[in-house]
C-alpha cells in the first residue's frame, strides 16, 4: 500500500454500488473512513427501461457525489456479452473463439480471464454518462470472491451466483478455474441459443411465448453436442405444467443443464466430474429449482444468501484502497 493509499484511507470514501435490472435499480451507498463503515443505505428505484436512468436516480447519485470528493460509482455488469475463460492473454481468447478486439478482459490471479464486450461496456458508460462510472465489475469477479473463501479441497465444484436477472456459473477444481458462463434469465436470450447453435449442427427453435418449445432440446440433440434425454425433457414439461417453476426459473434450470453439457462435451475444457454445487443466492431462489438440480443432476447442493449490492461495494472498497 502506497503513501497516497495510506493517507487516503483516513479520508472519507463513499462507494456507490449499483445493480441495474430490467425494471429496477438498486443503489447501495457506503461511507468509509479508516476502514470503518460510518454510513450505509440501500435504496431501490423503479425503471421503465434498463437503457435510461430516471431523473430521480441521476439526481440521487449526483447529490451523493456532491457530498464527497472521494465518491466511487461501481456498476455490477449483468449484460449478456460477457464470460470467463481459462488462461490469460490473446491465446486464451483465440482458443475459445473470442474476438479479443471486441472484448475487454481482466486476468484474475493469472489463472483465468473474465471479459465483457466493448459494446456492453460502452453501453454502461452511456447509460451512466450523467453520473459517471468508476468501476464496472463482472459477476464472475463477485462469484470468484465468494468461491475463494469456500475452496478448501481439490474437489470439482460448480459455483453459481443467482441474481434477479442473471445466472453466473463457474466450475472450479480446487483453485483451478475450469469453466465459466453467464446467462440473463430475465429475458429469453437469442444470443445464447445462437452461441449454442454454433456448437451444434442444427438451429434451435425458440419462442418466448411457448415455454414447452423452449424446453424442447431435440433441436440440439445430435452426435456432436450434448443432448437431453426424453425423460429430462419430460421432467421439464412436468415442472412447467405443475406451475412450480416460473419462466425465469425454467430458464435457470435449462441454462444450467446446457452449460454442464457444454462443459462435459467441449474439448476446450478439462471435463472433470462436478461433485457438488454451491449457490450464492441474491434473489430468493425457488426451492423447487434446488430440488430439481439435486434430483436431476444428482449433485449435493449448498446455498448461501448474499447481498449482491454489498458484494459490489466490498469489491469496490478493495479496489479503491489497493489501487490508490
Amino acid at each position, binding site marked *: 500500500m502506497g503513501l497516497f493509499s495510506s*493517507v*487516503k484511507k483516513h*479520508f472519507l470514501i463513499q462507494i456507490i454500488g449499483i445493480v441495474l435490472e430490467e425494471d429496477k435499480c438498486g443503489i447501495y451507498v457506503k461511507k468509509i473512513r479508516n476502514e470503518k463503515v460510518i454510513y450505509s443505505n440501500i435504496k431501490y428505484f423503479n425503471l421503465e427501461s434498463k437503457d435510461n436512468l430516471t431523473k430521480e436516480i441521476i439526481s440521487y447519485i449526483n447529490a451523493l457525489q456532491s457530498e*464527497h*470528493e*472521494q*465518491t*466511487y460509482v*461501481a456498476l455490477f*455488469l449483468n449484460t449478456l456479452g460477457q464470460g470467463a475463460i481459462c488462461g490469460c492473454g490473446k491465446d486464451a481468447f483465440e482458443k475459445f473463439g473470442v474476438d479479443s478486439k471486441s472484448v*475487454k478482459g*481482466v486476468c*484474475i490471479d493469472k489463472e483465468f480471464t473474465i471479459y*465483457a464486450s466493448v459494446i456492453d*461496456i460502452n453501453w454502461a*458508460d452511456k447509460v451512466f454518462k450523467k453520473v*459517471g*462510472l*468508476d*468501476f*464496472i*465489475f*463482472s459477476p464472475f*469477479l463477485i462469484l470468484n470472491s465468494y468461491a475463494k473463501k469456500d475452496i478448501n479441497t481439490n474437489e470439482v465444484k460448480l459455483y453459481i451466483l443467482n441474481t434477479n436477472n442473471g445466472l453466473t456459473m463457474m466450475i472450479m477444481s480446487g483453485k483451478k478455474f475450469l469453466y465459466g458462463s453467464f446467462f440473463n434469465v430475465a429475458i429469453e436470450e437469442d444470443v445464447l441459443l445462437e452461441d449454442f447453435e454454433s456448437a451444434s449442427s442444427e438451429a434451435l427453435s425458440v419462442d418466448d411465448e411457448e415455454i414447452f418449445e423452449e424446453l424442447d432440446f431435440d433441436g440440439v440433440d445430435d452426435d456432436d453436442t450434448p443432448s437431453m434425454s426424453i425423460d429430462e425433457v419430460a421432467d421439464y414439461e412436468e415442472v412447467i405444467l405443475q406451475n412450480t417453476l416460473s419462466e425465469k426459473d425454467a430458464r435457470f434450470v435449462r441454462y444450467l443443464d446446457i452449460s454442464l453439457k457444454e462443459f462435459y462435451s467441449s474439448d476446450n475444457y478439462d471435463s472433470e466430474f462436478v461433485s457438488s454445487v454451491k449457490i450464492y443466492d441474491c434473489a430468493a431462489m425457488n426451492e423447487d429449482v434446488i430440488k430439481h438440480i439435486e434430483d436431476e443432476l444428482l449433485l449435493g447442493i449448498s446455498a448461501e444468501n448474499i447481498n449482491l449490492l454489498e458484494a459490489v461495494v466490498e*469489491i469496490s472498497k478493495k*479496489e*479503491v484502497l489497493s*489501487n490508490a
Partner: protein
Amino acid sequence: MHSFIKPRKKRLIDEMSSLWIIFIALMSIGLVGFGVYVNYKSSFYIKMLEEGEKKHQALDKKVKDLKSDIQIFSMQKELSYEVSSSNLILKDSIKNLFDLVPNQVTLTKVVMEKYALELQGYTRSKESYRLLLEPPLKSIFDESRVEFSINKKGFFQFISHNKMEEK
C-alpha cells in the same frame, strides 16, 4: 485492477477546501518569506550599525589624534613665534650691543643670557671703556662690573659682568 474501466481521478479534498489550503499555504509561505526578509534586513542593519559604530569610534580616535596634533602644532607655532620674537629681540639686542661698542673697544667674547651679559675684549685704555661702553651698560643693566688685566701686547683686557633683575 479488476474492473473493466479505470476509476476517474479524484481529489482528496473538495475544491473549496483545496482553495483554502492553497490560500493558507501561500499565506504561510508569504509570512515565512517576509519573516526571513525582515530577519535578513534587520541583521543587515545591525551589521551596518556595528560597522558605523566602529567607523564612528575610529573617527573619534582620529579626531582626538588630530586635536592633539593641532595642540602640538599650536604649541610648536607659539614656540616658534616665541623663538622668532626672541630671536628678533636677540638680534636687536646684539645689534644694539654692537652699536653700543665704540671703535676703541674690541670684543673677543660675548655671552648673552636672558638677564645677564658677559663681555670680554680689550682696549688701549681703561677710559675708553669707562667713558664709551660702561655708561650705556649701566643704563641697561641693574648691575655692571668690570675686571681689567693687561695682556702681552700692552692692551687692557676686560671682562664685564652685567646683570638685570629677573621679572
